[in-house]
């Protein structure tokens, strides 16, 4: 298994290099005007001087080589527009913990509510609770998140009597962002868990358990849940990491100083180094999430193995 993970990581590295190259080339296609706030008033010499300072006058391969050399040496570069001449690591350092805290809380909340909800929906399939849950899932999935986030902010702040914006020190302001972030995940987990459990409950071993006279609850929780949870596990790392990265929309609604809105912001302001580092971070997180998901599935379900060495047991 270690060999398999090693291979996957190597391939991930190649993928990362390609992603970085493409993003790098794309960012260099941005208009030159975007780099200078007062482009119209600048002389040709000033513009060329500015480009030279940023290293943008060099041929593309040279620039690319410079970036990768820096990355290998652990130098992520300095921001130019977002905060002038500040190392990117210094800008990101205070932002990452906030996003991680928010994201972990949101995932915790979604697991606490989503898994029981899915299980209960499968247990009472076709009954009132199932319909109620389906209604909730349809609502969350069909109504654009952009819309219900707004209403949560609008009426939630009124009900809780707190200010609209986020404040790290005031725990009450954490409630609404965490709630908004977890709603989508709750619906998602509940929907898939219900689906898998319903599929699972028509299988032979469940029939056997029924015939043996086990109680419905015991069958549901001891047998079906454990088997239905295996395919769910594959999504968990990715959804955890995605939530931790932060949501652009929620973070900007509550002006949370996290990672979420940062990428859009720096792309629009053409802060190339920042874009590179954040893309690198997000892509790494995404790929690691996929690998972790596969590994978690193998650990949880002994019947699944990584194809290469069949019959090893």
């Amino acid at each position, binding site marked *: 298994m270690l060999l398999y993970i090693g291979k996957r990581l190597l391939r991930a590295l190649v993928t990362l290099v390609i992603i970085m190259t493409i*993003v790098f080339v794309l960012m260099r296609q941005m208009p030159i005007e975007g780099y200078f706030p007062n482009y119209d008033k600048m002389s040709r010499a000033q513009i060329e001087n500015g480009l030279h300072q940023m290293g943008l006058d060099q041929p593309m391969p040279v620039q690319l080589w410079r970036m990768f050399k820096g990355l290998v040496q652990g130098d992520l570069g300095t921001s130019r527009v977002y905060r002038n001449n500040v190392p990117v690591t210094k800008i990101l350092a205070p932002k990452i913990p906030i996003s991680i805290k928010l994201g972990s809380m949101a995932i915790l909340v979604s697991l606490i509510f989503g898994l029981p909800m899915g299980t209960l929906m499968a247990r009472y399939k076709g009954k009132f609770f199932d319909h109620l849950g389906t209604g909730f899932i349809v*609502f969350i999935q069909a109504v*654009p998140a952009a819309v219900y986030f*707004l209403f949560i902010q609008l009426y939630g702040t009124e009900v809780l009597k707190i200010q609209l914006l986020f404040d790290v020190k005031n725990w009450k302001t954490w409630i609404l962002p965490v709630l908004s972030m977890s709603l989508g995940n709750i619906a998602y987990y509940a929907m898939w868990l219900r689906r898998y459990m319903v599929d699972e409950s028509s299988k032979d071993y469940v029939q056997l358990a029924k015939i043996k006279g086990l109680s419905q609850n015991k069958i549901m929780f001891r047998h079906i849940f454990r088997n239905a949870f295996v395919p769910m596990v594959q999504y968990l790392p990715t959804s955890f990491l995605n939530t931790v990265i932060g949501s652009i929309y929620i973070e900007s609604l509550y002006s949370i100083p996290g990672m979420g809105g940062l990428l859009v912001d720096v*792309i629009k302001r053409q802060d190339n180094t920042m874009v590179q580092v954040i893309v690198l971070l*997000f892509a790494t997180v995404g790929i690691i999430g996929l690998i972790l998901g596969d590994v978690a599935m193998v650990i949880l379900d002994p019947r699944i193995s990584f194809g290469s060495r069949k019959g090893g047991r």
Partner: protein
Amino acid sequence: MAKIKNPSIAAMEEEIYRKADEQMSEQELFTFAKFDESEVERTGYSNYSYWGSTFRAFARNKTAMFLISVVVLLVIFTFIQPMLPNQVSAFQVNNNPETGLPYRNLLPGTEVRLMEGRSHTFILGTNSIGQDLWSGIWAGTRTSLFIGVVVACIEAIVGILIGILWGYVRKLDFFFTELYNVLDNIPVTIVLILVAYILPAGISTLILAMSLTGWIGMARFIRNFILIIRDREYNLASRCLGTKTSKIIFKNLLPYLVSIIMLRMALSIPANIGYEVFITYIGLGLPATVASLGNLINVGRSMMLSPSLRYQLIYPTVLLSIVTISFYVVGNAFSDAADPKSHV
């Protein structure tokens, strides 16, 4: 094998017999079944038609039938609304004939005199520069629905083509998987900004930008299903008999996927409409001169802090939610109906 638990097996058998008894009496079980001459003559003919059964199954779902009529009525209404009497254009700034100032933020249902001298009731009020919200909402729904449907169609066509190649041709699997890993990690924002930079802002540009990245998910979805059914026995048999690949794809694989593709498309329409709202929110959407639900919601958002003006946010969002929920439910119901296993 270790020891067999006799008691539980015995209990099991008992259970089976008990169940059988419930359905047939002892006597029935041991009498000959009737021999019916006409049953013997019956052949395998059936007048089953796939689409006929699909529509019959769909029509049985009352909620879906109701919502599909809502969608149809909404779409028709977005087109006939500008032709109704007493409508003002969504872009016309309505001025007060006496002062010459625009009617800003009129509350819903306010009746005022317009420049032309006639009186007009603003059903949903006006926005902060004096445009009619009622016409704006319908024009916006028209635009947003158009974008949603067109993008969903482009996504489906490109996604199905690539997905089939990806799933069916083994040699391409590695290439496309790597391509997917790369493309999936390139921030959409960069693509959106670059497209907006190269092309003039407008509906077609937005459609292009959204489809440029949207097909990837569809292609992966199709690929996963193709992988599952590619080597089923009936396809293996076709291949052994020398059926052309194109025929296998169009006659064997695609019909199997119809219900899933329909579901995915129906879900992608509301998703695209919501996405348009989001793109507008991050400032890369349609120009303010085009009415779209994204633009309306974005304008309404800025009114959020004053409770009396919240109607400018609430009406567009309510309409948006009706549209997206209807599409979602109809899509789900149609995909259920299109599944041949549910046809009896």
